[in-house]
């Protein structure tokens, strides 16, 4: 585009001088250089090497397992800290490639590997079990301890951080808890207690009685399908944050088709839970074994916890529990929320940038020792709308000094109302409300229409419209009562934001499942149960309502299969909403506001300077007045005009127009008349020489031009206006007093009669010409310059025009008329300047030049005989001219000439005296333009 623009400009500026070409060339060079900087890749600052490492791991610590690793080693010589970068469930070392490169570019030695059970690595999936995956990672730390380019804290103790998302985040926490060599961790969108994540109970019940998160569990386990691979979140590098990616759980030959690459105990636990939809003690134990909750008290590595707001798999409660557990032992913890997650993906660019910054800040301080101590405060963000340009979301970031937890730093009580309502539990949980679709992306949680509650299967409790905007950040709580004929119930609570028009949206797409037991059959006897709703960040606008919906089934969860009708009522009717007030994080784009301000100021100052300089220059006399010519209407001296393409229109023209004169500028077409007049009007700059009007040098826009009235190169009128309107509009443009215009005189000269009220568009050529002459005479300028004024006029009008021009030149005014018509100049002008090929060839009063010439044209019967006779007579020259002779008689009377010829027997048809002007003109014009040169 930029270069095309230059090319376009180049065409738009037709006459390209060398200077302009140089300027355009410089612009093009700068643009090309800028492009080169943007487009040419920089050489990588690291070397990449792949290796299959065999590590000794397992419960006995000596079972070999082959791990597919990729190592990004820095090129710089001195030792640098290392980062273990773990991938998400179903991913491989490839899926974190972009993040690894980002970290390697920041100066870290990055080791990525494919966890056991995935990709080309050996063995089976043990779900981050301490004896398997965690021990593998410890062996990788051992390996890093042997690398010379990795900075060491002590023998066998590398300076290392662990970064990972989801499955990788769980590993980071587990490894930090089980190996003190880890110096910093950044676990993202990961779990605290895997049993609670898959068997949640928002009523606070134990996982063994939790509600099975069927959709997510099935997705993980599904043979041949893959989890959210490589979702580390720090780079948002298109590593497939949403949607199952390739490289999933393959099923190699000879592997149990039921369990795929899952370890046998993991597989058994899943099968038992998924079959019944209820937790089992053995299964819960296995899941807890793979949970950081068991090792939090041993984590000493500073921890940056990043959790997603659109995450129905590992909701905010998981990070909240991790943060509390780690911080309880004095380890620095920072919590950050972003608007993505397992459902929402990597989040918008602003969120990705913020997380990238936080991660880099955390690692740089705790691994490299660079930068100040990062705050242990809390940052989060809220979706504020669609991005207008890339159709993504825009988020606003906020921060506070302290992480307040899910209870918020303050609370607001919102009163809910609604009678006890029956809600039917459908058989086998179908049809069920669709509240979140795993991996569907943020749309499911934000855009209306996806969330759907099945009629008859839910109870609604609605608040009054909120009076002031409510900034929810955290997990609201509500108490409900329920009655069930079976004595137990599984309910799903949702908090909706209901707009005044009735559209409801479910922040984060999240549901709070709760299993209630020991319920009475009559609602009147039911006791209140407090339910913690999912953690959300949402601004409830004034006028919106909050609605708590209690549904009996949800497609993402396994509920009771028996059809039942529950009765649901409010407990105390109070919804406790956690709020938080933080300071907005200035967007890095805020710098552009200063750029805009600077630009506007710079332009204003620049414009002021230009105007000031221009005014100063206008005030200062442009040129000195040449007093010698102060009373001469026009003096043209040595005028030359050569165009940039080399064409010389006027090579040298000198003449004067004095008061009272009507000067004719006579020459054939192309002689340079019009170019000369253009210079006189300030339309063109002469190459050399100048023109003085009353002693003032003519330049484009010179004020003295106001004393010239002109018609050059034909009329120029606004075709949609009448003749009179055109004249009035023209005069208005001069800014001079209307009384000075002398419209009556001008109109009389134009002689258009009533036609002056017609649109110029309808005028004939001659009428326009007369109007143009009238326009030139407006204000009775002292010098009138008319280019071919009689063009298009009929003979009576021409005769009238001659009289007008002669009369105009009285009273001290002067007229300059250009024409290619000899007769016209002869009859109109007092003086004549003959130009040809850009040069003056004759000048003087018409009388002198037109007067009797010594030459005579003879048409004779015998040219040769006549020439012989005339030679004898002593005339000055004889030249043959077609059928006749042109003779310079040199004082010999014409009668004598004729008498001699007749006497010699030569017949004389015609004797025509020649005039000097004609001689001069014809000599110039020659044969070529005789036709156009005479009328």
């Amino acid at each position, binding site marked *: 585009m930029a270069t095309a623009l230059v090319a376009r400009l180049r065409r738009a500026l037709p006459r390209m001088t060398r200077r302009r070409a140089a300027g355009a060339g410089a612009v093009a060079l700068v643009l090309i250089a800028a492009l080169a900087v943007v487009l040419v890749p920089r050489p990588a600052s690291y070397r990449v090497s792949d290796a299959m490492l065999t590590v000794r791991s397992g419960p006995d610590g000596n079972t070999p397992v082959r791990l597919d690793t990729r190592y990004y080693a820095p090129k710089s010589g001195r030792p640098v800290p290392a980062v273990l970068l773990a991938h998400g469930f179903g991913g491989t070392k490839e899926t974190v490639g972009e993040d690894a490169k980002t970290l390697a570019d920041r100066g870290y030695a990055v080791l990525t590997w494919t966890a056991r059970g995935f990709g080309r690595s050996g063995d089976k999936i043990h779900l981050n079990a301490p004896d398997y995956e965690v021990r593998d990672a410890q062996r990788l730390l051992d390996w890093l301890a042997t690398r010379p380019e990795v900075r060491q804290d002590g023998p066998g103790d590398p300076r290392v951080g662990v970064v990972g998302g989801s499955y990788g985040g769980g590993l980071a926490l587990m490894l930090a808890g089980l190996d003190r060599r880890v110096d910093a961790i950044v676990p993202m969108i990961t779990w605290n207690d895997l049993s609670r994540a898959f068997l949640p109970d928002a009523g606070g019940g134990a996982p063994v009685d939790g509600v099975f998160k069927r959709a997510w569990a099935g997705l993980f386990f599904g043979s041949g399908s893959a989890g959210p691979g490589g979702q580390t979140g720090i780079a948002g590098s298109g590593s497939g944050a949403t949607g199952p990616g390739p490289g999933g759980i393959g099923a190699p030959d000879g592997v149990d088709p039921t369990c795929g690459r899952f370890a046998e105990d993991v597989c058994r636990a899943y099968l038992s839970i998924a079959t019944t939809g209820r937790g089992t003690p053995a299964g819960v134990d296995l899941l807890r074994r793979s949970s950081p909750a068991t090792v939090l008290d041993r984590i000493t590595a500073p921890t940056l916890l990043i959790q997603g707001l659109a995450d129905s798999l590992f909701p905010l409660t998981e990070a909240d529990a991790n943060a509390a557990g780690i911080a309880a032992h004095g380890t620095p913890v920072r919590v950050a929320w972003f608007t993505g997650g397992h459902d929402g993906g990597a989040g918008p660019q602003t969120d990705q940038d913020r997380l990238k910054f936080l991660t880099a800040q955390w690692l740089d301080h705790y691994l490299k020792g660079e930068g100040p101590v990062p705050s242990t405060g809390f940052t989060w963000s809220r979706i504020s709308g*669609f991005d207008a340009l890339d159709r993504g979301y825009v988020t606003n970031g906020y921060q506070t000094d302290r992480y307040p937890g899910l209870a918020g730093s303050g609370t607001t009580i919102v009163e809910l109302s609604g009678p006890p309502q029956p809600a039917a539990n459908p058989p086998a949980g179908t049809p069920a409300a669709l509240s979140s679709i795993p991996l569907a992306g943020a749309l499911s949680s934000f855009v209306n229409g996806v969330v759907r509650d099945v009629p008859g299967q839910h109870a609604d409790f609605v608040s009054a419209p909120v009076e002031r905007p409510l900034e929810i950040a955290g997990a609201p709580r509500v108490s409900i009562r329920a009655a069930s004929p079976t004595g137990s119930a599984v309910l799903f609570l949702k908090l909706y934001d209901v707009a005044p028009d009735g559209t409801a949206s479910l922040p984060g797409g999240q549901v709070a499942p709760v299993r209630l037991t020991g319920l009475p059959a009559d609602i009147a006897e039911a006791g209140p149960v407090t339910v913690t709703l999912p953690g959300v960040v949402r601004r409830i606008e004034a006028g919106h309502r909050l609605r708590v919906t209690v549904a009996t089934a949800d497609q993402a969860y396994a509920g009771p299969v028996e059809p039942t009708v529950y009765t649901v009522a409010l407990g105390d009717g109070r919804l406790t909403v956690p709020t938080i007030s933080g300071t907005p994080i200035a967007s890095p784009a805020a710098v552009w506001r200063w750029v805009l301000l600077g630009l506007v100021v710079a332009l204003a100052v620049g414009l002021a300077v230009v105007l000031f300089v221009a005014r100063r220059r206008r005030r200062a006399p442009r040129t000195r007045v040449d007093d010698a010519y102060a009373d001469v209407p026009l003096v043209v001296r040595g005028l030359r005009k050569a165009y940039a393409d080399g064409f010389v229109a006027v090579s040298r023209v000198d003449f004067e127009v004095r008061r009272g004169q009507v000067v004719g500028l006579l020459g054939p077409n192309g002689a340079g008349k019009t170019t000369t007049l253009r210079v006189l009007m300030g339309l*063109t700059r002469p190459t050399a020489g100048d023109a003085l009007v009353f002693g003032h040098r003519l330049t484009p826009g010179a004020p003295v031009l106001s004393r010239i009235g002109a018609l050059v190169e034909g009329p120029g009128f606004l075709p949609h206006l009448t003749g009179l309107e055109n004249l009035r509009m023209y005069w208005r443009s001069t800014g001079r007093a209307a009384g000075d215009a002398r419209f009556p005189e001008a109109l009389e000269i134009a002689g258009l009669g009533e036609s002056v009220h017609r649109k110029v568009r309808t005028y004939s050529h001659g009428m326009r010409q007369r109007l143009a002459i009238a326009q030139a005479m407006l204000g009775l300028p002292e010098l009138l310059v008319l280019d071919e004024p009689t063009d298009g006029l009929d003979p009576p009008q021409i005769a009238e025009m001659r009289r007008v021009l002669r009369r105009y030149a009285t009273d001290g005014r002067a007229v300059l008329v250009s024409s290619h018509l000899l007769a016209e100049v002869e009859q109109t002008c007092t003086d004549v300047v003959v130009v040809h090929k850009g040069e003056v060839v004759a000048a003087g009063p018409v009388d002198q030049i037109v007067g009797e010439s010594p030459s005579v044209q003879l048409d004779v019967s015998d040219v040769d005989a006549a020439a012989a006779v005339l030679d004898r007579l002593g005339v000055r020259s004889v030249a043959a001219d077609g059928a006749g002779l042109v003779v310079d008689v040199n004082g010999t009377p014409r009668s004598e000439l004729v008498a001699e010829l007749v006497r010699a027997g030569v017949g004389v048809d015609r004797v025509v005296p020649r005039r000097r002007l004609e001689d001069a003109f014809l000599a110039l014009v020659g044969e070529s333009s005789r036709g156009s040169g005479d009328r």
Partner: protein
Amino acid sequence: MSATDVAAGRRPGATGAAAGYRPGATLSVRAEWRRQLSRRRTQVALGFMVLLPLIVLAAFQFGNGGDDTNGGGEFGSMVDLATTGGLNFTLFTIFVSASFLLVVVVALFCGDTVASEASWGSLRYLLAIPVPRSRLLGVKLVVALGYSALSLLLLAGTALTVGTLRYGWHPLRSTIAADLSPGQGVLRLLAVLGYLAVGLLVVAGLAFLLSVATDAPLGAVGGAVLLSILSSILDQITALGVLRNLLPTHFSSAWLGLLSTPVQLDDVVKGAISGIAYAAVFWSLAWWRFLRKDIVS
């Protein structure tokens, strides 16, 4: 034509100007405004700005019951919301005109202004008055921008009037943010108009430069519109990456961000920088060119 007449004109001041001539008084903004207003194209363009909202309104009236999905996205939502109130109707009208109609109108006013004088031949007579060239350009640009702004206001004003008469005075609604009270909505609408005006400065600058560079009014107007379209097309090619930020139309829809709460200003600011910078460059080139140009038309 008496001797006193001549004497009256024979009072050469320091500049040698005729009596009553002052460079600063030539071709006043008012004179140029009337000059342009007398033109049919000005009247038609302004008239169309009034007519368009009426046409859109009529289309909505006739188009009842059509239940084809209109593509979704923010455009679909705008169509859905257009009939919910005068403010939303205005927003919709602006939305459908912003990408092309307003570009053409601004290109017309700014591209035609000097080139048409050149094509009529009246430019040389203005310069021979003499109207100083800088002043000529300045006045022409001010008037062209004035008519462009008037068009924008006429379009929005008519849409707001007929929309409010037909659909009532209701809050400004959008799918991405809470309803805005009518008072707040009017402010947002004005902000949107302001941003559109700044964004259209690119077209104004380009058209004006072309107007100075050519004698063909159609060439100047068409050239500016074509380059604007070209820029929009290139902007669709995501492979260009960050280079797209340099395209003059890249931020042309950033005004949508003005509808959210809180207002998203980042792209608006970048768009304003782009618009002002491009316009400044184009106008500087126009001045540079015109002050040195030989007027041969």
